[in-house]
């Protein structure tokens, strides 16, 4: 079960013509897929499109996808998802896949290139979650390059649900009209935007998957093998490109907004339209309803570009501003080529006035646009709206903000309360105290938070599932072994072969720690092969240890993550044993975020039903804590924090455990294993105690109180 349930929301997928859909962007995309008569969907989870996979999974569980004859798979990787689109090569089947980009596109690019070479019959749509800018967790790159290199059309719709859903439907038609796969790019905040659009009826696929299976078709020309592969390249230029251009022009997928100051103009990627409009509104060049003083050409399709549209937009214009986010500035370069070829002398501003790198926020666009207008149309800046930024940048503000500098600390993301990954890093940290610093190859997943304080563990990260491969150069050169980390998600994505199989085949001697927490946790808690939960639409409970042994690893240990002593002992053994061959430790315990989501409502209803329930949590005795914080440096739990002591003798704040503690037990383990201090305790609260509980508690407390009274009598004499 995923971190967020869409069980209620997916009912909106049944809306039809005449209804208004209200909800999250990602849910709207799913609705648009159904409205397009999609036959199959696949993908790999990852922000910002994780929720799309979750929505589809919940819709599948509730039978909504079956109602419309849609086959849905949680693909093993983006490559697997891209390869799924092969179903659209020979048959008029519409298919859609989705992933986080550019990382997912990197993984998928082999299949994508093959798909794009042979071309498609049925519409093939790739929904790209462009993980760029604030909130992104990956390297900052553009998917645009992939679109260009394989010739896949790239849609970048204006971020409102009407445009997005329209473009989903057009995407399929464009794909079919030009026999080319199409990418629909959604930026982070557009995926999670909530809004509304007028729903249409869902459609069943024109052809069903069973019809295709029962009457297979084969066309040698569509297979990427010579000589067809050479033909494909020619076809891309001579047939598919012109077909796409014709479709885009005919259906006016790009939009033109008129403005009175027509000696200048602005060209913008669709996804940036709203931010641009806001910047314009704040500079007094537009209102809040899309009415602009400057003509705007919105590229809802950023690849291919339409030469005639561009030339005609720029006709009689002195200059245009190109608003293109990310680098290289492909669009600006293309515009220059197109305009010069056409003999136009319209000047193009863009990367000279706007930053070449980094996200285009409202502030960034406002600054760039202001510079453009100062150069080209200063009269438009005369009535800058007074509502914005009166206080920004003035002396008072600057002076006050400077005072804040020493008071603000960064707060990067980190491990959740009770997270079972922390004990692994506690163990590594303690081991490093003994053995000296170790080379640790990181992977992608929550475990990468070990990079930050308090653990400060991890030297590189090379990609999902590539933690083990990332250390493969370090092998056998020294007595000191490198450690690789890998999550269960990365393991099933490709780590089993690229990491473990690779290590077996190359007779490696390294240690790989696989963190098995029952979910693809970092992407939102989706189930994977080794999940221990029962899932009605997926096959789970395939142990990682079995797979690891299956590819030939002899030294494998599965350790409960929270058992710190055992974890440390096994780590030490793996790093020192004379036994040759790869060592694998599977650190196993359920993701606490997901566990709490599962367990908490259950406990609450058990308590309400009068069942005996024991709730555990940890605490620190304030009189015993000396404020050295070594527990915090070894634990990293959000619920283990500090507070200023009431004791005037203690100048350092003391440790305390806040109410969010889930009683995972790590604090106690750390106190024991690291021989920290005796101030930690665990409390067990017994709800609805049995008569035996009450009886034993009664006589215990009678004896204990008697003894306490005895010693207190003596002590209290001297209390002042």
């Amino acid at each position: 079960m995923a971190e967020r349930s869409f069980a209620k929301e997916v009912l909106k997928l049944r809306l039809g013509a005449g209804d208004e859909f209200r909800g999250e962007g990602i849910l709207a995309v799913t609705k648009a897929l159904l409205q397009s008569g999609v036959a199959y969907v696949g993908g790999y989870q990852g922000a910002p499109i994780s929720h799309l996979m979750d929505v589809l999974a919940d819709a599948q569980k509730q039978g909504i996808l079956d109602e419309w004859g849609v086959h849905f798979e949680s693909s093993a990787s983006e490559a697997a998802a891209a390869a799924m689109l092969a179903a659209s090569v020979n048959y008029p089947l519409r298919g859609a896949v989705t992933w986080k980009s550019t990382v997912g596109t990197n993984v998928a690019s082999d299949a994508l290139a093959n798909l794009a070479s042979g071309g498609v019959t049925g519409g093939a749509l790739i929904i790209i979650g462009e993980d760029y800018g604030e909130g992104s967790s990956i390297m900052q790159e553009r998917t645009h390059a992939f679109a260009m290199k394989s010739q896949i059309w790239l849609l970048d719709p204006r971020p409102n649900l009407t445009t997005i859903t329209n473009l989903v439907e057009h995407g399929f038609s464009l794909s079919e009209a030009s026999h080319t796969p199409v990418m629909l790019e959604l930026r982070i905040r557009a995926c999670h935007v909530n809004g509304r659009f007028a729903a249409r009826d869902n459609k069943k696929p024109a052809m069903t998957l069973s019809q295709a299976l029962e009457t297979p078709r084969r066309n040698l020309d569509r297979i990427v093998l010579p000589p067809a592969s050479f033909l494909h390249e020619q076809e891309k230029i001579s047939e598919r490109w012109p077909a796409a251009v014709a479709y885009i022009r005919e259906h006016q997928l790009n939009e033109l907004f008129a403005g009175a100051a027509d000696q200048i103009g602005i060209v913008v990627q669709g996804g940036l339209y709203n931010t641009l409009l806001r910047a314009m509104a704040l500079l007094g060049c537009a209102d809040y309803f899309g009415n602009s003083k400057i003509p705007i050409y919105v590229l809802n399709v950023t690849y291919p570009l339409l030469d005639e549209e561009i030339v005609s937009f720029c006709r009689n214009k002195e200059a245009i501003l190109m608003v293109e986010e990310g680098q290289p500035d492909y669009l600006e370069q293309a515009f220059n080529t197109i305009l010069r070829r056409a003999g136009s002398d319209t000047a193009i501003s863009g990367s000279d006035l706007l930053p070449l790198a980094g996200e285009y926020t409202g502030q960034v666009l406002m600054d760039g646009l202001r510079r453009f207008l100062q150069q080209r149309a200063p009269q438009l800046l005369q009535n800058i709206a007074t509502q914005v930024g009166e206080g920004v940048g003035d002396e008072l503000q600057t002076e006050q903000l400077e005072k804040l500098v020493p008071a603000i600390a960064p707060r990067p993301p980190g491990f959740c309360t009770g997270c079972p990954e922390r004990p692994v890093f506690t163990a590594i940290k303690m081991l490093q105290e003994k053995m000296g610093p170790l080379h640790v190859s990181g992977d992608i997943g929550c475990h990468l938070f070990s990079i930050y304080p308090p653990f400060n563990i991890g030297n590189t990260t090379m990609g999902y599932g590539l933690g083990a491969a990332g250390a493969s150069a370090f092998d056998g050169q020294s007595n000191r072994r490198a450690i690789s980390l890998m999550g269960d998600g990365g393991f099933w994505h490709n780590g089993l072969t690229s990491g473990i199989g690779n290590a077996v085949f190359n007779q490696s001697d390294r240690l790989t720690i696989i963190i098995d927490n029952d979910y693809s946790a970092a992407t939102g808690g989706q189930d994977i092969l080794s999940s221990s939960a029962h899932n009605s639409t997926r096959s789970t409970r395939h142990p990682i240890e079995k797979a690891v042994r299956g590819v030939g690893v002899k030294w494998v240990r599965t350790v409960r993550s929270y058992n710190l002593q055992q974890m440390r002992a096994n780590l030490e053994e793996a790093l020192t044993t004379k036994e040759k061959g790869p060592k694998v430790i599977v650190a196993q315990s359920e993701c606490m975020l997901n566990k709490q989501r599962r367990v908490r409502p259950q406990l609450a209803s058990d308590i309400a039903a009068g069942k005996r329930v024991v709730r555990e949590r940890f605490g620190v005795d304030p009189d015993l804590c000396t404020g050295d914080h070594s527990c915090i440096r070894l634990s990293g739990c959000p619920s283990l924090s500090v507070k200023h002591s009431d004791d005037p003798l203690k100048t350092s704040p003391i440790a305390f455990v806040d109410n969010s503690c889930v009683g995972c037990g790590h604090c106690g383990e750390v106190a024991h294993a690291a021989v920290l201090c005796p101030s930690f305790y665990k409390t067990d609260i017994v709800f609805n105690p049995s008569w035996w509980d009450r009886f034993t508690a009664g006589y215990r407390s009678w004896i204990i109180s008697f003894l306490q009274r005895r010693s207190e009598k003596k002590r209290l004499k001297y209390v002042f």
Partner: protein
Amino acid sequence: MNDHSHHPIKLAIAAIGGQGGSVLANWIVATAERRAYQVQATSVAGVAQRTGATIYYIEMMPPEGLVDGEPVFALYPVPGDLDVVIAGELLEAGRAIQRGFVTPDRTALIASSHRVYSTIEKSSLGDGTLDGQVILEVGAKVARRFVCFDMAQAADHTQSVISSVLLGALAGSACLPFSRKDYEASIRADGRAVNASLAGFSAGFAQACAPKSVGNLDITLNDPLCDDTTPPEPFKLPLDEPVAAEILELVYKIEAEIPPPCQELVLEGLRRVVDYQDVDYGKLYLSRLDRFHAPENPDWRLLMAVARLLALRMSYEDTVRVAELKTRPARIRRLRQEVKISAGQLLYTTEFMRPRVEEVCATLPARLGAYILGSARLRAAVSVLFGRGRKIKSNRLPGFLLLYLLASLKRWRRGSYRFVQEDKQINVWLERIQACLPGQYDLALEIARCADLIKGYGDTHARGLDRFNTIMKHLNGAVSTGDSVETVRTLRRAALADEEGVAFTRALSKLNQTQG
């Protein structure tokens, strides 16, 4: 275009991932939609926000604006263009101000004054917490309106979550044109934990709409951070209270000999050591202080430092002390309060103890302890017998009796191995300080402060003591005296900079080079 078209209301929520920011955003969206506003909300979900700082952004177009057409909403807040900023934590409020989201011409800042310390702050070896007071002061200056109180506490009191208190504070502040009923209807419609959320909402509402005014700004009620009007109670020695005669004698000694600014701290130190051992021990404490309140000292910093650190050193935590504190009835009362135990529920506690050979020998008679520690074989034997992590169930009989018995060893503490060791070390430390007087007051002060390094248990304690001794040794070897103050200060700070001792080693080798 229409220059006089309507504007959307722009609201940002600065939160920490996992704090319930999305719940709050959903309530606000539902409330605005209830009043026929057209609303757009955006957020960043996923791993990037796990326990980290994150922003939710909402734009709301009033129904009368919709006649102008379909609004184009932005997906990002623009600095200087926000009507309301809500922060679920004080540092996040500061971060929002720093990003320019709060401006005096229009922004209402609704923030909780509580702190959730960041990892960097809380993992410091000493006090790494940042000053929240600055954020309160700046907030009061840069916000058009500043509603700020401890909402975590309000959530705690109402057994609710902070998002409901924040929503209540937003409603109570009347920054948005929605009524209390509208907000409450959204909580009800949501259907989850309705009663708790409504209670939290009420608490937030009440505090936000009955604020105390500072200038034209609304600042909180009961938060000590914000509250600068109540002067602290003047300190008085407990001379009129019913205390034991032996104690009273010591209090009179404080009154007679200790300068008034130091009396409170010395009394606290006395209280600590008497509680730790007995009245005689208290006498020893005061007599040890005698040499540090000489009138020729330029100020009372040395006396304050020694009084504080001496009390801590004299009440070092041994197994006996731990057992005693863990079995006191006050502790059990505190635990019951802390976990909010209610009638009909039972509470059990488990203590996590792991005595090493050193801790076992610490409580043994001095010569026996020294003998065991001196013999590798005996050390190993004791390790095997005791050196395991123990989970002691302190309110079941076997666990309680064990601790009770350990606590009763207090009467023999003076003969124990650790006591003898500590006593010796304390005397050396005090003599070293005294040796600097009267000429080198600053050096004396620095040496006194070095005792701050000795804290914690087990490895942490050993590490601290080791660094303390290294500094003292370095001082013995130092040739010149003029730089000694700076040397000790540098080393002391380096010793506290990191656990691994990187900074300390670096500082030491640098000093050795310059002296070498």
